[in-house]
């Protein structure tokens, strides 16, 4: 709704020079918490615009209270806004009508599916400005009801639709429409594949019909996911198809481009997908760790960090001691970073991992690394993990966790730490 409201604020000046009766009687107290008023209060607002404004407020009120019949009543009054002659309102009223109307119809107990389709069709062809957006929404609606073929038809109609010059917003809509059409081809392909697998177990992908879907989908997907943006599900779909047809290099290239292209917005998922792909294809550990290193910088709290720690601890090349030391130190940093996030605070696996790191450090007599790291984090970690209160809480949640932390604490905070004493007391009592 936000973008509509922003649009609505530029509502053009009305042409009527008539005074309104009771001017300025409706006083709205400005509040910073509320979004800006849809129709800003104007002293020379015509009676018609006042009606529209009150109508919108009534619709909003009815919708918030789930009074769908009232909302339908008021939106039937609101329809006259479509005939507004001022240019600013001509642009926004169809959009309001479409969005609110669909929302009301979706929730109304007595509405029929035909009503919704009808509203989509009417509003789509009401003006030219919203055609693409409404078509896309229409397709989503059809998909929600399981009408895949019909949705695909809608999207192809919308794709071939042209009217005048394309504005930036419109071309964005058209890109979305294209990519979703490609995605629907993929869904059909996927469906065929599962059918084929059921039918004959040797499913070698030789089905020509299936291949044509693959071609259709890949042409659009390949093109769209090259432009900067977040295309997660589309990339996954494309990669899945490439993998199915054994185009490993192609898939890897797509994923690498998606993850490493600087023009794209930072997207942790891109690295996760790449990691998963490499993992699936038994890539060397070095490669996997490279991906995880970048992911660590982006999302230190990602669950793959446990895996990363594991890799760091168990690297293969034993010949280089310095490198090993560095890796263990790095593992300590990674796991401690992870534990600083609330969601990991009481996770026994994470603590187990930390314990493993500490053990291997002690094994190598690198207590100094531990002390150094602890010194940096002491001020945060004491109140975050090692208070008496935490001991009590951990005991309630998980005994294993308590045990692990009892093991960890003396190595970090010293033997006489508050947590340890409390934990001891608790375990003794138990």
């Amino acid at each position: 709704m936000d973008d509509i409201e922003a649009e609505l604020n530029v509502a053009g000046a009305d042409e009527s020079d008539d005074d309104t009766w009771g001017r300025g009687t409706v006083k709205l107290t400005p509040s910073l918490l509320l979004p800006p008023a849809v129709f800003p209060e104007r002293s020379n607002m015509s009676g018609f615009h006042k009606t529209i404004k009150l109508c919108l407020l009534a619709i909003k009120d009815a919708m918030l209270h789930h009074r769908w019949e009232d909302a339908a009543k008021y939106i039937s009054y609101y329809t006259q806004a479509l005939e507004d002659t001022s240019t600013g309102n001509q642009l926004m009223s169809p959009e309001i009508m479409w969005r609110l109307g669909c929302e009301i119809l979706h929730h109304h107990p007595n509405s029929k599916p035909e009503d919704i389709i009808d509203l989509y069709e009417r509003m789509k062809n009401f003006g030219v400005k919203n055609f693409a957006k409404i078509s896309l929404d229409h397709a989503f609606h059809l998909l929600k009801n399981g009408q895949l073929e019909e949705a695909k038809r809608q999207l192809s109609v919308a794709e071939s639709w042209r009217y005048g010059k394309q504005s930036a917003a419109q071309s964005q809509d058209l890109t979305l429409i294209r990519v979703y059409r490609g995605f629907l081809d993929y869904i059909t392909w996927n469906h065929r594949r599962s059918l084929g697998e059921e039918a004959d177990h040797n499913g070698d992908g030789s089905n020509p019909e299936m291949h044509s879907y693959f071609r259709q989908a890949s042409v659009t997907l390949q093109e769209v996911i090259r432009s900067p943006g977040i295309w997660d599900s589309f990339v996954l779909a494309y990669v899945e198809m490439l993998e199915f047809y054994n185009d490993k290099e192609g898939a890897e290239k797509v994923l690498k481009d998606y993850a490493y292209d600087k023009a794209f917005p930072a997207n942790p998922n891109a690295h996760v997908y790449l990691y998963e792909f490499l993992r699936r294809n038994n890539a060397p550990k070095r490669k996997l760790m490279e991906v995880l290193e970048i992911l660590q910088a982006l999302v230190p709290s990602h669950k793959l960090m446990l895996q990363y720690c594991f890799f760091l601890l168990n690297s293969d090349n034993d010949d280089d001691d310095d490198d090993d030391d560095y890796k263990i130190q790095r593992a300590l940093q990674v796991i401690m970073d992870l534990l600083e996030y609330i969601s990991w605070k009481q996770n026994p696996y994470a603590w187990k991992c930390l314990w493993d790191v500490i053990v291997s450090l002690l094994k190598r007599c690198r207590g100094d690394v531990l002390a150094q790291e602890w010194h940096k984090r002491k001020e945060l970690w004491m109140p975050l993990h090692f208070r008496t209160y935490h001991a009590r809480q951990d005991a309630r949640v998980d005994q294993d966790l308590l045990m692990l932390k009892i093991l960890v604490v003396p190595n970090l905070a010293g033997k006489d730490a508050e947590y340890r004493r409390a934990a001891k007391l608790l375990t003794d009592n138990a």
Partner: protein
Amino acid sequence: MDDELTAGYSVPCERCSAVNWGVSDTGQFYCKSCHNIIERVRDVEETEVLSTSSRVTTLSRKSFKKNEKVLGKEWMIIEGFQFVLMHQADALLVLGVCPQFKNDVLCHFWRRYLQKTKQAYTENPISLGRISAEPCQNVDSDSAVESEALSDVSLHSGPSVSQGSDLSLGASAGHSSDDEASTSLWCGSADATGYLNRRNQRSHHLMSMPRTLALCHLALLWVREAVTLADLLRFVSEKHIPYLNIHEVFPEEIKLFGKDASIFRVESIPSYQRVQKEAQLLARVMELPAFPSISAQCLLHPGLLSLRYLTEANLPGGYPGDPSPLDVSYELHHWVCEVMHRSGLAKVGALTFDHASTAQRKSPISYELLACALIIVSMKLLFRLNDNKEWKLSEKADHHNFADIPGSGLFSLAWWYETVLKAFEKAKKREEQQTASQMWKSSKAMVFRKKDKTVNLKRRRVVEHLQKSFQKLSGPSPDTLHSKPSSFIFRWGEGEDSDGPSFHQTKLHHVMKKEREAHTTANEKYWHPFLASRGKKPCKSHYAEVEPTLPRMYVWLLELFSFLLRVTPACMHQEVLRVEQQFMKCRRFKRKKKTTVEK
């Protein structure tokens, strides 16, 4: 629009409901708005397809023009306004206005207006746009007589003339050739361009929709009907008087489109002040003499009008019972009249509408505003309304009422406030709902520009379709209880649809005291904001600044009365200040002490 090719096929498109068919090269029909191809094929001979198929979208101007001519005869904007006035007058007659109103007053006013603005009944009418200034050929003797009759304003003796669709204006103006008409502008009337010219509008005081109401208001004032301007506007917004979508009542021959539509289009009901200003202007233009004087028996007199608003606001003494002479000073109405007399506002000269009076030019008379202001001033006299004294007095009344002394109870302001507040909030909400459900657009779409015609008609169809489909899903329509025209908004007393208990019979003994055989108010002080000297009256827009400093009770009272009259609280406040000003002025003359004035 290529009617020749589509042969007038006018079934709306299934997909977008537009009627905008084109024919493709293969003779297949397609919708030009959404490119939907339908199964209809143009059935013509092969040769014809060959000859016309290269350009399907050529607009056949000839047939269109012919069509337009078929649509209606040439008409003048003034004729349109005459229809508007006629319908408004008929509606007022239905509402119970005396029959002379239409034929003897409004009709004469209208003619006088036309004559004075030189639009008709004159030797050389003004030329508006396409009207050539041909000397008028048929100033028939009948209308000449009438205009004479008007000039000495014997308004009750003029021959009654029926206003109907067979109207013929005194000055029939020649029209220029049709060729020019079709190229320069697109409208049904003959003189719309002249009407839309701002300079013409100003210099000739041309008619406009708000001015029809102003004219009705003047005529109502002349016959001294009890329909005040506030009532008139309320009836308009409640659709008892036609004003919105007026073109629906136009006869078949008068087709409203293009430029005409923007003259008759209504997107607001004009404000009280606007109509009042227009009425003054019209009275000046028409050079009307002083209006019949408002006597104390006339329903427009603030004395009687205030009774009506006392009843409406559920205040005591509003009910015209038969109070014994002893009791008379315990009635609020008595105090209203007292304030009115002592401020010199009851004088005939001050109450008679006269556009020539300089005092009225500065502050036009509005009887209903004056009556309400008098009530507010009386309330201030009796209760002080400083957010303190009135509650103390009300406590006194409550004590008395609980003590169960026989006779009707005392007026408890707190209880009254509670009661009225509830009804007021309800009425405000109802009003808001009514505004939200007001339909401004007509079922006959207005087309302002030729190129928008198909778009507008398509929009209309879509709107109608959507309205139908949503109405099916909507709950019961709001109660039509208040659709009957009534002078009153609230109903007090017993009964099912009552807004609350009635306070009309309560007494005001507790706010009075006896002093040297005369009753006077127990409240000894009176407050008022700074009263600027005459001529330098504070601007209306200052109310917003002053409002936070005023007592809440007073502000609430202003809101209540301004809601009843559909004016702004600022306007009501202004009127109260005016009454106070007058009151102080007269007091200074008389040096008669009644209340101590606290500054």
